């Protein structure tokens, strides 16, 4: 099984299994600008981290096994708590997701759609890795 990126994916292309060790992970903010948040080494496969965005909102970044980085909102829409970055990740039908650590609803990491409630979604953000060895890799993202 491979994880397939869709046209709306908010992922930074990277070679499977090995994300770049150098450079800067950047996230596309709701205002359209790119914000450097961390180095690739700050991410652990299968876990998330939270990032504070300039407008005070929060993003959750995840690194998957294939080396792709995803970003969605950190806010769990079911409770209002800023906790999605602390959920467990998984994949269903080849698409990576995170399960909220509070009430376990799952969110697609590429689109932000809630897998357990078709009417709910959270913002998904574009991600790219900029660095000396890699040119900016564009993720389209669904800007909100």
């Amino acid at each position, binding site marked *: *099984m491979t994880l397939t990126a869709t046209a709306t994916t908010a992922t930074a292309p990277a070679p499977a299994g090995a994300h770049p060790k150098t450079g800067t992970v950047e996230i596309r903010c709701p205002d359209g600008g790119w914000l*450097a948040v961390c180095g690739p080494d700050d991410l652990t*496969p299968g876990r998330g981290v939270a990032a504070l965005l300039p407008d005070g909102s929060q993003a959750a970044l995840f690194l998957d*096994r294939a080396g792709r980085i995803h970003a969605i909102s950190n806010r769990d829409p079911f409770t*209002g708590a800023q906790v999605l970055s602390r959920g467990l*990740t998984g994949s269903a039908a080849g698409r990576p997701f995170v399960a909220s*650590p509070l009430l376990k609803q799952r969110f697609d990491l590429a689109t932000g759609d809630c897998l357990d*409630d078709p009417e709910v979604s959270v913002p998904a953000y574009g991600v790219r890795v900029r660095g000396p060895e890699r040119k900016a890799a564009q993720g389209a993202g669904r800007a909100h």
Partner: protein
Amino acid sequence: MTTTHPHPGTAAPGATPTLVLIGHGMVGQRFLEELADRGVTGRARVVVLCEEPRPAYDRVQLTSYFAGRTPDELSLVDPDFLARHGIELHLGDPATAIDRTTRTVTARSGLTVRYDALVLATGSYPFVPPVPGSDSKGCFVYRTIEDLLAIEEYAEHARTGLVVGGGLLGLEAAGALKGLGLRTHIVEFAPRLMALQVDEGGGRALRRTVEEMGLEVHTGVGGTEIVADEAGAVTAMGLSDDSRIETDLVVFSAGVRPRDQLARECGLPVGQRGGIIVDEQCRTDDPAVYAIGECALAADGRVYGLVAPGYDMARVVAGEVAAQLDDAVHGGPDAARQPGFTGADLSTKLKLLGVDVASFGDAHGATDGCLDVVYSDARSGVYKKLVIGATGELLGGVLVGDADSYGMLRPLTGSVPPVAPEQLVLPAGAGAPAALGPEALPGDAVICSCHNVTKDAIQSCETLPEVKRCTKAGTGCGSCVKMIGKLLPDSGEQGLCACFPHTRAELYEIVRVRRIASYAELLDAHGREEARGGEGCEVCKPAIGSVIASLAPAVGADGYVLQGEQAALQDTNDHFLANLQKNGSYSIVPRIPGGEITPEKLIVIGEVARDFGLYTKITGGQRIDLFGARVDQLPVIWDRLVAAGFESGHAYGKALRTVKSCVGETWCRYGVQDSVRMAIELELRYRGLRAPHKLKSAVSGCARECAEAQSKDFGVIATANGWNLYVGGNGGASPRHADLLAQDLSDAELIRLIDRFLMFYIRTADRLERTAAWLERIEGGLDHVRDVVVHDSLGLCDELEALMAAHVTHYRDEWAETLADPERLARFVSFVNAPGAPDPSVRFVPERDQVKPDLTLLAGPTLPVRTLEGTSV
């Protein structure tokens, strides 16, 4: 004698290619089925010439004819198979000549067929040693149903029978003669029975058992002549040691030889000791002629007398023929060829005369540097030998008298067994752990070696009939049927989640016996096909994280749950070693063993709570919960707690929580034992033990039961004589009173029993199954659990105790360990891009002189929360 005749006449019709198969035995029939599967029968004329008067039957089960199976029941050919596929089968009409220049085959009836491809599946013939008089009346071979019919008829007037050959078939024949009521002798030239399959020790065990059945065994001697009376009927056989055995009937079963006469006569090369020489594609020197099964001398220089390699060859040639047809149609080059036949496993398992005999791999220990592990019990006729290679890998083995483990051992051949080899040969109950379960086998392990069917293929089916229909597994020698039963679900879907088809208990076994310490490795090797290589899911990750943590010392994993990949498996609570609360803050519960705490420690807790503004509450488990810590505060708070001598209380884990206690005999005028001392001892022993669900315990100092031990997973109540142990209690939504497991135990007995009980629970419970539900569910209930942990009915107790001992030895405080690891500490930040910044959404407002979460900060489009019962807001 044509049974099906869709293409009348003998000439090949114009454009349709013709395929001729000589021989309709087991391998021939399999070849036809493989052709049909590939659609070849629809595109080519298929003609079969068969010497025997009946279509292919199960020669492996030939002897079962004497047990009442009719020839029809032995048939391998569905009644409409030939007609459905338009196959012309000529029974009782063997091929007599092949002309390779004109590409024609002539049969005894005069029938001549031109072929485009010719497949020889002529099998073998019984070898009759050159003993004078071997053509006397009353001499038989043991190969076909017709042979059996003749033996049966002749035996009606015989009292004694003699079988020449103490190999596999010889023993079968001897069993048959005995079944016919004859006094039966076995004469074997080799020094032991089944010399090819078993070693000297196995041969001795086998001989003993065979003799106990009343058969007379003569080894190390050969027949020199057959004595006949005036009518030409057998009366005795003379032996090479100048002795003589009176007998009315002789069956030659001294091995078989490839039937390669047709091939020799048409100039095809054959081996020095017989067998039509073929390459890996089973092609003879003539590219239009193939040979498969026992008549072929395979590319590895061997003639295979077993059915499984023959089936494999049938598959190869059917693939070749199909590919050639495709090439002819599409004009393409050699399409993607299947792998050829390069050799086969000679493993066998049989029930001979009621004795299990199995051999597999390098049964004779021919490999350089190999060592034997032998268990031999001549009294009960059990002999087991494993051949272990220089690096500990299982190379092969011999099992006589008890071959139950064959199904497990054969697939492990070539790998290092998950447990010590001596444990694999010891009988159950002799200090050995439970035999390996089928769940320990990898998905590609071959379960049915006759039909080369893997565990995965079997598990794609639901029922045994379905397995037999879809995969043919279990329809050959039948030795795998028991194993297949174990691999099939009892009912319905049992898997843990969409990633694993196994239950938690099965995954525990896989992790344990295969010593897998990595989730990714487990998922990629044992997960459902569609889940392999993926991310896993939120259900199995923590469950497997817990299993690996439970088994950490035994499987070589780090007991620290945040080590390496294990960190990504943990629920947020385990990941931050604290309990997530509704506003994203965490609560902290230091361990207070037995609920006993010094004033100094109590003061430290108070000071920490005050300094960090934590809401403080006494828990039901006799400890103190501190609420409202931000993730970045956790290390600072724990730095102070650890300095004061506190450890993690594992309130966040599926692990031992507390062992509550009453004050006991030290202070209480009713108390009969020191319940606090015991509670502290138990809590310190089992702290940090990861389990399928949380574990609670209590110790009461007398029968008044102030510690409420009977509502705990394991509860202890003091008696005048010691301790009573109760298990399976629960509070919560469905309360359950605990059951009495054992009474009046000493300290040591109590602890030993709890060790066993907890480890047995951890081993067999489902994910998130408390001991109460587990005890209700497990087959046999409390009685079974008592049998296992008190009476050691499964022989497991030593191992369960060893696992617990390893846990106790390897316990380390998770918080102390975390504080000592700067890299780990770096993860305790609210924001990766602002490590010093507190999370502005985690704020508090006053409530009853303490704090509570400020939920207004979380406001916004908060959604109704879905619950199982419905929607609440």
